[in-house]
């Protein structure tokens, strides 16, 4: 049996970085300003002694935490010990792993450090069951040990390599303005911390000036808003692109290995047996083009912030079926046998129409109440009405998309979520619970929503709306449900036989 190993010493800095960042840069800048005036060193120490003590305490605790955190690769699992005051010992069997992952960020390459993590179906949704920064030489034995129960060298190696264009399409679909804006804001505040507030302010002023120059007659406030949204989206797009370039997926035996990343290389070793479901995403644009982005849901893959659990970045319908049967034949997609009836179309359209009406009325009121800002009101009303109209079209298309199918004990669920269309393939044994729910209006029209709860560390559900209640019951094979209380009065009475 091997000995217990410590994490890479860089872990001390990584675990304390967020606390140190608050104090160390102001302290270093102050120290730098005193570099040539050593006679004032005593004054500086007198002012900053508490900050210095705090930094030393943080580093000391970080070192103690590093010393107490050890792991050992045993014959059947990983044993982890950690904690200074509150100690924890954990044993994670290889046979129960759903994902073993390694991440080599570019900034850790020169010091030969790699992040490794392992996850099972249990544990918490926001953290890996085992996660550590280790020496580079240790990550290969780690992956080898973790994949041993599932890897079969005699089986054919099935490889999927997407084109860069496919990855660009995925980045286009998955990019999110808010994520980009948040990243930009964090970047600027980080610059402010390192180089000082004056530099940060100068940079923001420069950007604002450029935005105003590019406004082309649009009100300046509106231009800044529009460019912030566009800038945020571009940042998010580029981050997604860099994250997923050099993507590959390899299936061998019961294991699926996914590699991706241009600068930061990530390797995910996924146990096929523990994949909960496969999800194909589309938005209105990609649906029109007939493109899909496919994701898998396995605990431990796509868990980190901004990480996507990609299986196929983008492909058309033929490629989707072909590659899915190549990589994961356990998750077939089939045509729906249960679809919403034509009379339920209104149920799809009422929510977006209501939203459009509310937005229209609100901006109408603003137009009359604030006549001095007509330009901005008009611009903002158009800008807010666009997503509402978009949502209306999505819901209209969703009516034709929605449905449930079943083939070889694998459900295919088709529904829309927000602005996205989802096609989910989930085996029966990975479904925890199915709810058949009805609103008062659905009770009257004989409709229902089917809610599927699937295996997950957290809470994952799929709502397929507005299906026929009777057909849904028949599909699920349940016929003895109690009659709804509200409709019991309307139930036909049995004719009383005459004596």
């Amino acid at each position: 049996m091997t000995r217990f190993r410590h994490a890479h010493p860089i872990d001390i800095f990584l675990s304390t970085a967020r606390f140190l960042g608050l104090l160390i840069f102001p302290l270093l800048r102050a120290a730098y300003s005193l570099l040539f005036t050593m006679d004032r060193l005593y004054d500086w120490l007198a002012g900053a002694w508490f900050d210095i003590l705090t930094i030393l305490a943080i580093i000391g605790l970080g070192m103690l935490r590093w010393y107490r955190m050890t792991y050992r690769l045993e014959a059947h699992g990983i044993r982890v010990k950690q904690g200074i005051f509150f100690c924890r010992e954990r044993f994670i069997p290889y046979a129960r792993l759903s994902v073993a992952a390694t991440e080599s960020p570019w900034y850790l390459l020169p010091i030969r450090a790699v992040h490794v993590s392992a996850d099972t179906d249990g544990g918490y949704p926001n953290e890996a069951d085992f996660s550590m920064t280790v020496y580079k030489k240790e990550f290969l034995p780690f992956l080898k040990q973790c994949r041993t129960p599932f890897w079969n060298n005699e089986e054919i190696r099935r490889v999927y390599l997407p084109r860069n264009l496919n990855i660009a399409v995925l980045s286009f679909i998955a990019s999110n303005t808010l994520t980009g804006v948040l990243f930009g804001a964090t970047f600027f505040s980080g610059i402010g911390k390192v180089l000082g507030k004056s530099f940060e302010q100068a940079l923001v002023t420069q950007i604002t000036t450029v935005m105003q120059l590019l406004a082309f007659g649009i009100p300046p406030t509106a231009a800044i808003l529009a460019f912030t949204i566009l800038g945020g989206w571009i940042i998010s797009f580029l981050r997604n692109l860099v994250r997923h370039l050099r993507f590959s997926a390899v299936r061998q035996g019961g294991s699926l290995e996914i590699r991706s990343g241009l600068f930061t290389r990530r390797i995910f070793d996924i146990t096929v047996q523990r994949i909960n479901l496969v999800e194909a995403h589309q938005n209105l644009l990609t649906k029109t083009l007939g493109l899909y982005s496919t994701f898998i849901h396995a605990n431990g893959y796509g868990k980190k912030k901004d990480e996507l659990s990609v299986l196929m970045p983008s492909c058309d319908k033929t490629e989707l079926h072909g590659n899915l049967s190549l990589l994961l034949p356990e998750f077939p997609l089939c045509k729906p046998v249960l679809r919403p009836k034509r009379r339920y179309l209104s149920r799809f359209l009422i929510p977006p129409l209501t939203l459009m009406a509310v937005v229209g009325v609100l901006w109408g009121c603003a137009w009359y109440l604030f006549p001095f800002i007509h330009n901005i009101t008009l611009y903002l009303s158009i800008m807010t009405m666009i997503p509402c109209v978009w949502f209306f079209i999505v819901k209209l298309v969703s009516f034709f998309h929605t449905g449930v199918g079943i083939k070889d004990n694998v459900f295919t669920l088709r529904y829309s979520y927000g602005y996205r269309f989802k096609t989910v393939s989930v085996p029966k044994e990975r479904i925890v619970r199915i709810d058949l729910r009805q609103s008062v209006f659905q009770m009257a029209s004989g409709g229902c929503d089917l809610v599927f709860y699937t295996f997950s560390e957290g809470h994952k559900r799929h709502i397929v709306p507005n299906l026929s209640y009777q057909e849904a019951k028949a599909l699920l094979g349940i016929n003895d449900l109690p009659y709804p209380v509200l409709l019991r009065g309307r139930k036909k009475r049995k004719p009383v036989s005459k004596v």
Partner: protein
Amino acid sequence: MKEYSISKKALLLWETAALSCAAVLYCLILWIFIPGTWLWYLLLWLVGAVYILTAFLFLPLYHLSFSYRVTKRELFSHSGILFPKSRIMDRSRIAFVTLRHGPLTRLFGLSTLTVHAAGGSLSFRLLEHREAEELASFLTEDLL
């Protein structure tokens, strides 16, 4: 089927914690409030009454309410006085086990065993450390 029970030392641990809390509260009242006033007396009596109820009624009953069982197929845990709760976990769903102890529980030789499974976890609180280790290795054997 094997029955496990919360250690008797757990009651001692809770009693110590309750006594410490009461002592701290007493000190705070003596330090903050003016001695001899009605509020001072009221608070002292209140803390005393709550401590007596907790230490001599609630904690012993709470300790008695704990029951753990490991069968061939399931893990079972029961606890609670006013709102008793039973938790059952299928052993085939277990993913991994964690053994935890803090500074105080280490002093008393106690450990908490948490069994993680898909969709939830179940804790066997404050077992004797040796017993917890045995149970952890027993449950782990199933997973290999």
